[in-house]
């Protein structure tokens, strides 16, 4: 087991390096560079930039050095100083911007994940136990719908319905009055009022998926011999199910826990954009489109690292749960 983990961790470092290179390249890919789009934005507002100013800007942002040098400067700053650079657009350190948004994103994601599991697991289990009953068909149908409707389209339709019924634009996490107010009970109540929509949207698709997976794997387990043996030996029904098949059926879900890590921090990007949530997603989208290099790059790097770490955790969990995998 420990050898397995050691092997995995050893591969981690070069993978991280490679991924950081890719993150950097992906940010650089959109041609034009930040300075050009900045100048364009200025010109749209009526200002003008002459060549000398443009060169000064380029030098100021360190964009005149060759790409390789830029990469090394960026990476060394991150590793040695934890300095992700400054966002061009906001003129603030990237770390500050992330500190603003990441906790909120994480809170939202974690809440939706907990909600999803609380709802989906019992439904999936019940669905498997009462196979082909009315509730089974009902929930299977619902989960089909939930799987087929992409979250951001669902968000769109929900927004429309709420808007039409109440004339209230349910975007954002807070009403305008409480946007920048300090935390108070009233603000919390306001948050509760607004947060149900994002939570609903974020949970529906995952709930559907988990219900199906849980149902399928539990059905597989219930067919097996040991269940019959347990029943024959006189175990009460609830123990027969809870103590053995469910533990095994949960395996596929547990092994995907690792993937939750990048999802929690990254948040659901498009849904956040549609609902205009103050999370990490929309900020990253704008940064990539506007070539705000350090912001986008820093964030992509964090996400990549979390994905790799998450995969590692998934693999370890899977190997812990299923000893056959350790021999691979």
């Amino acid at each position, binding site marked *: 087991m420990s050898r397995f983990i050691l092997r995995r961790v050893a591969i981690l470092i070069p993978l991280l390096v490679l991924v950081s290179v890719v*993150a950097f390249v992906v940010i650089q*890919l959109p041609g034009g560079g930040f300075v050009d789009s900045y100048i364009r934005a200025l010109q749209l507002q009526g200002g003008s930039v002459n060549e000398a100013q443009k060169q000064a800007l380029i030098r100021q942002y360190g964009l005149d050095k060759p790409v390789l040098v830029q990469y090394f400067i960026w990476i060394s700053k991150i590793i040695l100083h934890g300095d992700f650079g400054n966002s061009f657009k906001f003129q603030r350190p990237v770390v500050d911007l992330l500190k603003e948004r990441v906790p909120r994103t994480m809170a939202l994601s974690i809440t939706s994940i907990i909600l999803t599991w609380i709802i989906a697991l019992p439904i999936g289990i019940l669905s498997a136990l009462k196979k082909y009953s009315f509730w089974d068909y009902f929930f299977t149908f619902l989960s089909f719908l939930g799987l087929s409707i992409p979250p*951001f*389209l669902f968000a769109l339709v929900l*927004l429309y319905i709420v808007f039409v019924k109440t004339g209230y634009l349910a*975007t954002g996490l807070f009403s305008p009055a409480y946007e920048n107010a300090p935390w108070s009970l009233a603000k919390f109540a306001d948050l509760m009022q607004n947060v149900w929509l994002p939570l609903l949207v974020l949970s529906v698709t995952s709930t559907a998926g988990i219900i199906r997976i849980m149902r399928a794997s539990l059905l597989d387990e219930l067919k097996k011999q040991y269940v019959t043996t347990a029943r024959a030996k006189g175990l009460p029904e609830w123990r027969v199910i809870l103590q053995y098949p469910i533990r095994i059926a949960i395996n596929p879900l547990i092994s995907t826990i690792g993937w939750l890590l990048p999802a929690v921090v990254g948040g659901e990007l*498009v849904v956040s954009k549609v609902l205009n949530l103050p999370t990490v997603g929309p900020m990253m989208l704008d940064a990539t*489109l506007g070539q705000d290099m350090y912001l986008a790059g820093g964030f*992509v790097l964090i996400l*990549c690292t979390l994905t790799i770490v998450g995969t590692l955790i998934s693999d370890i969990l899977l190997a812990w749960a299923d000893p056959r995998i350790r021999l691979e």
Partner: protein
Amino acid sequence: METTLPPKAAEASDSYVNRRSGELLKRYRGTRARRQEMAEHLLEASQYELMLVKFRKHKLAVVSFYLLVALYLIAIFANFVAPYDPLTRFDKLLFASPTQIHIRDAAANFHLPFVYARTSKLDEKTFTYKFVEDTTQIFPLRLFAKGEPYMLWGLIPADVHLIGTDSQQPLLLMGSDQLGRDLFSRIVFGSRVSLFIGLVGVFISFFLGILLGGISGYFGGVVDLLIQRLIEFIISIPQIPLWMGLSAAIPREWTGIQKFFAIIVILSLVGWTGLARVVRGKIISLREEDYVTAAKISSASDLAIIFRHLLPGFTSYLIVHITIAIPGMILGETTLSFLGLGINPPDVSWGSLLQQAQDVTVIGYYPWLLLPVAAIILAVILYNFLGDGLRDAADPYTR
């Protein structure tokens, strides 16, 4: 009642049963005999025939299959099905609601379905434009009506459309957008891009996945290690930022078609990894089989062994994977276009049609702009049902 018959009586009733069932079979010759023949035929049927028979039992999946074929036919014959070109504008009918189809006219007479002409009038009280129907003239709907001329697939000139009014009167089946373009036509033309990106993209990633997964699983060793690391590497990069970065890199000057192919390439480059992993796993489990050894001894080339011998062993998984991957690709393209990174107006795809729908106040006033959502959900649900049916059909353990 006796449960066992004395021997002689049993014999007698046996032959009675045989005679009687023979008579019955002759009477119900149709279904019963056919079913008997079918059952006997199935005893020697090939793997694919068995799958087909089981698939047909799943009514929902069969219906979904035919509906999907219909959708693709609509996409192929988009010029014909759509009443207008996606770029045709009706300057007098901006943001018009869908044309109402009437059966009874103002005098309460019955006609075949028809529409009225519409003009925009300024409402004195609210100072907004309202569309008022002119009930004096009837424009009946026609099938195979003469409409705008077009070139079918750019080759065959024609001017017959599936539905039309045989006149200049605009028929806006799903309303119009802010430039007065017919939404129904745009959805039909958009289906071309959205549906085919799914197909083409999946075939590319399918081929890549099988090739690389097959090589990785079959040869093992260093090749396997390298390809596995590559797969892990690609998986580690979060998808949406990767898509965003790659699509933001598409030069703005490229035409719609070039962007279309660029997006396919982008989506497939990331999508092949899932299949490759599954293929590798299956090949590893199958490569020690006797028939593979026999093939090797018969000096079959390695590629032939992978594709002709090993692959058919898990065709069912491949088929199911395809039907799951295609809606994934369709949604990927929709997401990209929705974010403005994929197909942009004036080119049409379902995602780009939804770009206008980002503003909820706009949809509040003109809800028909959300109709592309219905098209997307329809396509995805149909593929999901089809995939479910195929999965049940391909599973050798269900009866």
